[in-house]
């Protein structure tokens, strides 16, 4: 960020504070989100333009810009892209961006340190690294006041001297930024505060976890080795906006995203909200990187199908609640379950063929009926159903739902009861298994 000449770092929307790579994209965004007529969906060019259109064409007045944050809804202000933004708001924005970038950089350093020095051993590394970074930051952030404080005696004559003091600060900062990279790989530890939130949420959260930690809002902080180098190069340009984006993401993600969970989901509210709008073209490196850090949470969930979190009160996801694929869900239906060959069934089916042939004419007839069924159950029923004596009670228990038959009708029972029908009763006792 050595180029202080630019009047703004990146195009941003005055109405909703979102950042964009390009003024063209910003304008498209404004036209689609802020200057679009809610009645006929026509896209106008400016706020006043929209107001005039609604009045002339629909005879309706509008008093605020749609989808704008409070305080920025003035319909009469003529803003187009970055043009027309009041100077005061520009300065506010710049200040806020710088504050954010200092804060989040500082915060990351702090976290990096706090994670690294659990023992006291790393204390020296920590503070000594932090100080050089902290000082220029502290001096830079509130420029006038600090500069006033620093060389105390010259307080009166400060302002010009303060400015004179600034350039050295400025030159100090760019070197600081390249100095930041060693902190960046600390991003995963930097993600700790979020991870810390997770454990309480974990049981209910599984599907939300990976997305949460992925945080495409933090793209440049990719620890993934191949990506860090290019990541670093772009960082000076990006960190302010991205880290700035990371802060407002917490509150603004509520409006930007429809991911605010409905009343039904309990613990998932705040973590869901943090997930930024990935439609911004900035989500690559961290997504790749965080998958390695995210490895743990998803692994704990493999036992039970996780449930999806609902979108919001006004959105309905047309999908069953469990987070398994539609095909898996369908495969669980009884009418498909019975078609799936069970392990060992094909062998047992072969084993049952000879005995059934030996038993008598009734059995083969029964077996032929379901030609496609490789499963054991039909042949078994055929066998038990054939000889009428002593069977009915067992049959009654064994017949109805195929899914529950397995314990009752172990496949290997068909082996022994070949020719000697007398053997049947012992074979059939429920507890016995072969």
């Amino acid at each position, binding site marked *: 960020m050595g180029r202080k000449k630019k009047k703004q770092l990146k195009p941003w929307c005055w109405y909703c504070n979102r950042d964009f*790579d390009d003024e063209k994209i910003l304008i498209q965004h404004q036209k689609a989100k802020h200057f679009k007529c809610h009645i006929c969906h026509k896209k106008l060019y400016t706020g006043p333009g929209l107001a005039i259109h609604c009045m002339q064409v629909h005879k309706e007045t509008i008093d605020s810009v749609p989808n704008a944050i409070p305080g920025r809804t003035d319909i009469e202000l003529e803003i187009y892209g970055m043009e027309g933004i009041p100077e005061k708001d520009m300065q506010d924005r710049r200040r806020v961006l710088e504050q954010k970038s200092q804060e989040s950089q500082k915060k990351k350093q702090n976290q990096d340190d706090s994670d690294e020095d659990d023992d006291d051993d790393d204390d020296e590394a920590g503070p000594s690294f932090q100080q050089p970074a902290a000082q220029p930051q502290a001096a830079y952030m509130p420029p006038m006041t600090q500069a006033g404080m620093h060389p105390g005696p010259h307080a009166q004559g400060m302002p010009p001297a303060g400015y004179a003091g600034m350039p050295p600060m400025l030159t100090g900062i760019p070197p600081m930024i390249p100095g930041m990279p060693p902190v960046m790989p600390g991003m995963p530890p930097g993600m700790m505060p979020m991870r810390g939130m997770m454990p309480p949420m974990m049981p209910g959260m599984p599907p939300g976890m990976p997305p949460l930690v992925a945080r495409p809002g933090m793209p440049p902080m990719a620890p993934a080795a191949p990506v860090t180098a290019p990541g670093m190069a772009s960082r000076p340009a990006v960190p302010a906006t991205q880290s700035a984006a990371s802060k407002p993401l917490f509150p603004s993600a509520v409006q930007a995203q429809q991911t605010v969970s409905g009343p039904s989901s309990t613990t998932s509210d705040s973590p869901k909200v943090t997930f930024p709008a990935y439609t911004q073209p900035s*989500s*690559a490196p961290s*997504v790749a990187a965080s998958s390695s850090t995210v490895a743990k949470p998803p692994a704990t969930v493999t036992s039970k199908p996780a449930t*999806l979190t609902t979108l919001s009160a006004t*959105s309905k996801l*047309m999908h069953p609640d469990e987070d398994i694929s539609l095909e898996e869900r369908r495969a669980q239906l009884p009418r498909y379950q019975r078609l*799936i*060959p069970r392990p060992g069934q094909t062998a047992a089916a072969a084993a049952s063929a000879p005995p059934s042939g030996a038993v008598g004419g009734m059995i083969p007839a029964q077996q032929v009926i379901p030609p*496609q069924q490789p499963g054991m159950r039909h042949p078994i029923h055929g066998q038990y159903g054939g000889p009428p004596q002593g069977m009915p009670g067992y049959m009654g228990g064994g017949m109805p739902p195929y899914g529950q038959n397995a314990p009752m009708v172990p496949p290997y029972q068909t082996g022994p009861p070949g020719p000697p029908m007398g053997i049947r009763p012992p074979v059939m006792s429920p507890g016995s298994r072969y």
Partner: protein
Amino acid sequence: MSGRAAAEKSGAMTGANEFKLTQGPEDSVSAVKFSPSSAQFLLVSSWDCTVRLYDVSTNSMRMKYQHLAPVLDCAFYDPAHAWSGGLDSQLKTHDLNTDQDTIVGTHDAPIRCVEYCPEVNVMVTGSWDMSVRLWDPRTPCNAGTFTQPEKVYTLSVAGDRLIVGTAGRRVLVWDLRNMGYVQQRRESSLKYQTRCIRAFPNKQGYVLSSIEGRVAVEYLDPSLEVQKKKYAFKCHRLKENGIEQVYPVNAISFHSVHNTFATGGSDGFVNIWDPFHKKRLCQFHRYPTSIASLAFSSDGSLLAIASSYMQEQGDVSHPADAVFIRQVTDAETKPKST
């Protein structure tokens, strides 16, 4: 007789340039795939445990073979050989000239995806047993088993690379010539379960869809400048009575010539998108029920649309399953020049 003429004769026309296949499967369609060499033949796999071969030029079913359980995917190795797999975990190949089956091998759990990689000449299968297996189509035999972090839901071939989408929203890129290690490990940039991944014909990237009415366009080159170009957009959503209904996007198919792609959702709509200008080119009429699968023919002249209820709302009654063959025009599939 052209497919259209045959269809007109039999009353199967469902639009000016679209007709429904006769003798369709008796349960939901899981996949449709055109032959690599001609727009005449279409493979259709179904939950009725069959794989059928259709001649779309005469709207007739030419061949049918069975699996033990519902078939989840099918693919052509070459114009004369179909490969398929499903809930019975068996990988079968069927010689379309001799009408003979061969069981090539098995997975330890249902096979979800079957694809062919022409550049490496290998068949690829993905399964809920969390593995991807390669198969030499000539012998045919197993050529390796490669563990994935989760159940495989979808996969696609881009040149000599394989992109695998698993449960847990993981995406892995493998080099089919060197399967010793994963080339790239990614996480889907969409927050919800991955439904389908298809690679661009130009092999630069892939399109990924989720169950939450969203599609992401991603690039394979991991460099930051290229990664910045990736984006996602919402689609297949309907507003009804103030509630927005968000549908899974089940199917994606690329037009081989224009690099534009079609998506099909559980809302019953098919949209065609231009990924370079980020615009929708076209939307067809609404189909009777969810779109389960889409396939462009290799010359880009036809689009096969499988309309099958996928149990999104549970086991309820639904419109009949059908496969539609639609003639597509440049106006519908070609990027606008402005």
